[in-house]
């Protein structure tokens, strides 16, 4: 599937187990299939995929939280993050583990930043002002560095 990489990266950041990840991935693929005719070519195809994947993952995450009676909109507690061995690269696993401790929106911001999206594209996908993005990224990177401090060489 083209752009599968985008979907995988996003689903990994919002799911907490391999089973969840596969469910999220399937749901995103299903929504892309269902919504494919609604794509109006007003943006890049990848931008559209990003937006749709993020929306699906956030919706699934919310319904999961409702089911678990877990109402916080902030990051997941560390003990709930089971799936930190998704990749063979240990540093990448640690980075993902740290990303999952961020709030839902910060997770989206950092994923887009790491995938080299411009501030304008990021703002378009998330639906925010491009001027705020830079400051936010700086803050998120500081937080990630703090979490990762000493864990990665």
């Amino acid at each position, binding site marked *: 599937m083209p752009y599968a990489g985008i979907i995988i*990266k996003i689903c990994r950041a919002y799911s907490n187990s391999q089973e969840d990840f596969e469910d999220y991935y399937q749901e995103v693929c299903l929504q892309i299939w269902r919504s494919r005719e609604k794509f109006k070519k007003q943006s890049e195809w990848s931008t559209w995929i990003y937006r749709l994947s993020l929306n699906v993952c956030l919706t699934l995450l919310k319904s999961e939280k409702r089911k678990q009676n877990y109402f916080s909109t902030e990051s997941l507690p560390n003990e709930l993050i089971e799936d930190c061995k998704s990749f063979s690269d240990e540093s990448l696993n640690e980075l993902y583990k740290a990303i999952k401790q961020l709030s839902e929106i910060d997770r989206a911001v950092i994923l887009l930043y790491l995938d080299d999206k411009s501030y304008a594209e990021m703002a378009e996908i998330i639906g925010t002002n491009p001027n705020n993005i830079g400051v936010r990224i700086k803050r998120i990177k500081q937080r990630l560095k703090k979490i*990762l401090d000493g864990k990665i060489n």
Partner: protein
Amino acid sequence: MEKSIESIWKEGFLKNDALITPKLNNLYEQKSIDIVEKFKRMYKVNIIALMAFALLMLVIALPSGMPYMALPMFFLFCGIVTIALKFKKKLENLDKSQNSYEYLKSFDNWTKEMIQTNTSLSRFMYPYVFLVMIAGFWFGSFGGDVPGNTMINEYLVNNPETLTVFGVPLFGLIGLVFILAVISYFGAAIGNFDLNIVYGRILDKMDGLLLDMEDLRK
């Protein structure tokens, strides 16, 4: 030297296993099972509610002096519950070893049969309910005066020239037959409306899922 998060990201995703896509073979399996299971739960609750309503008819209407309404209503609901239980048994016997599409398709056939039966029954059920309610008020309690007869006698004393059939004014009988015919005519629509309120959303979901699956199978 510590790696930056940018280099962790880039180097990590250069490795071959980082972007392995999950298989989508069973994309619809869980969804199909979820929908059918949810429907089963709703159907079970509905049957229990019908049983409770049948008993309620006996408990409330009998002591309040309307046995001619309570007993036929009780038997009607018992009949509906019996039919629903037969359908429930058929639903439980759907072959789960089929693939998701066939499983959902057989569930779809089951719902069509259930809706068809409901539509046919509704044509008789709603007029029956109306008739039973009239009878309940007409005959009142066992023994003693019959309220309907008292009312007719009073009317006939004041209007002695009224045409009657078996002691009942003809216009009343014609009116009753007309109302029953109208209720019977709209019975199927009322029945489907009723069904739609309870199961509409889940059946729409199932239709959407089946359409998707058929689209993908093309």
